[in-house]
């Protein structure tokens, strides 16, 4: 019998497994999670400005939203979809649930893996979007610590949301989840327009505040295009921290319910 093993060591072995599998599936992963934002960039950031239907500086409003969307969507999907499959029918995660590590740490590992995949998608989309849209006035990488902080918090928040929904919903409801939860979240997430712009429709400006994606988009705006009006950093961080905390708590609870009966 082998001697006992530290949870940190088990955690890194499980993370290495997810990284190995994700690396092999990288092309499919990028197509699955970034195709939609990239298509949007082609239409609204390339074609329509050239037709004169949208002002050319619209790309400045859009680029942070596109990065936010890619980050959030990939972090979410990277956790939610495997969770639905693992607990729903393949039961593949059982080997990790039987590893000598407390169950919540297996769930935390999923959140970390989702965050990493979200970051990969964001880092991939940014140069692609820039290439398609041409020079983007006002885009800056002058505040890297802020960019990193927004990325980490946002990725963790959506990864945890993926953990929660992936463990809470039945496999046959995935389609419903995309159309009822994700689609409105994307459209009202201030990805394609800044939140400040909504002041013309005041009711809407308050309603969208329930959408977690708003704070990711606005956070990206504050870091990537600070010249565009954006929410105050205090509100952005307070919201992101709160969303993170709530979904990590809900996610861990729901994961535990599925893991141990």
């Amino acid at each position, binding site marked *: 019998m082998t001697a006992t093993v530290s949870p940190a060591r088990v955690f890194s072995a499980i993370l290495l497994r997810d990284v190995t599998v994700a690396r092999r599936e990288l092309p499919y992963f990028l197509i699955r999670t970034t195709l939609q934002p990239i298509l949007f960039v082609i239409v609204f950031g390339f074609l329509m400005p050239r037709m004169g239907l949208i002002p050319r500086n619209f790309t400045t409003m859009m680029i942070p939203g596109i990065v936010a969307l890619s980050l959030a969507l990939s972090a979410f999907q990277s956790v939610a979809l495997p969770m639905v499959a693992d607990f729903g029918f393949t*039961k593949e995660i059982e080997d990790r649930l039987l590893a*000598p590590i407390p169950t919540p740490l297996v769930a935390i590992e999923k959140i970390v893996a989702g965050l990493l995949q979200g970051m990969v998608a964001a880092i991939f989309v940014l140069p692609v979007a820039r290439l398609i849209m041409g020079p983007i006035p006002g885009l800056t990488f002058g505040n890297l610590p802020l960019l990193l902080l927004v990325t980490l918090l946002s990725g963790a928040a959506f990864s945890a949301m993926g953990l929660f929904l992936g463990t809470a919903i039945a496999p046959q409801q995935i389609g419903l989840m995309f159309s009822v939860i994700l689609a409105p979240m994307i459209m009202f997430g201030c990805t394609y327009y800044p939140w400040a712009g909504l002041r013309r429709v005041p009711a809407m400006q308050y309603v969208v505040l329930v959408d977690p994606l708003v704070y990711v988009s606005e956070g990206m705006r504050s870091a990537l295009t600070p010249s565009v009006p954006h929410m105050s950093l205090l509100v952005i961080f307070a919201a992101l921290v709160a969303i993170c905390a709530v979904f990590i708590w809900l996610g861990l609870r729901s994961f535990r319910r599925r893991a141990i*009966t």
Partner: protein
Amino acid sequence: MSDAVIIRSLRKVYGTAPVAALEALDLTVAEGEFFGMLGPNGAGKTTTIGILTTRVRATAGDALVAGASVSREPSSVCHRIGVVPQRPNPDRGLSVIENLIFHAAYFGVARAEATRRSQQLLERLGIAEKKDAKVDQLSGGQQQRLMIARALTHDPGVLFLDEPTVGLDPQARHALWDILRELHRQGRTIIMTTHYMEEADQLCDRLAILDHGKLLALDTPVNLKAKAPGDTLVEVSFDGDASKVKADIDGISKSEARGNLLRVFSRRGGEIIPALIAAGEAQGLTVTDIHISRPSLETLFISLTGRKLT
């Protein structure tokens, strides 16, 4: 010899279910023992394995596995056990050998040692030529062997198998039996659930017969067979309600009618059959089928539970 598993007053009720899945179970399994749990679906076998492998939380009671409490020290229990699930659940994102190497890593085995062990296990289980294949390319029997190999990569003291031969063809089943016998010879404790009488009879040192979450009998297969009532189970089917048949025939120790089926335990073997046919005819019934079973675990099970195992 010390005990590998000690189960104390274990009880499990799922959610708001009106009946307990497991009712005050007490059991001890010695180190090195090949222990079988026999019972039909819903008997509580899988629940017991679930609790012993930390995946099901007991409603009351506790169990010690290799000296660690399943409720208070689940990680320690996980470290000391290997689990072969009812349905193979290999990691489809990884190749066959990677399934073993990564699993070993989850248990803190260093990469080089994990690779060496994995190679060795694949050879021992006869799937070494598939080591770089995707798991989907393995047959059902090969996937089950991969599951056994995986359960052994971290060299656990106690091995749990939940109905390991369900869905396997007879050849794959016998091959698996040979593997299990060899593991047992090496001194490993094996706890297996099954609903195949023959499997339990052939492999296990001791058997627990469970039904409706209760322990009905616990002994060696030989002793259990000796406890089977009567000498012979005679089952006679009629073309009408069998409860009308008066089976007060000399030599019958126990009789029971279920629909058109009459089950009797006979001390005189098949000699009572003519009398049974006559008793049926007296009620205007004709015999449609007759089945005789010699004393076995199967006849014991029927006498204990009133129903067949499979």
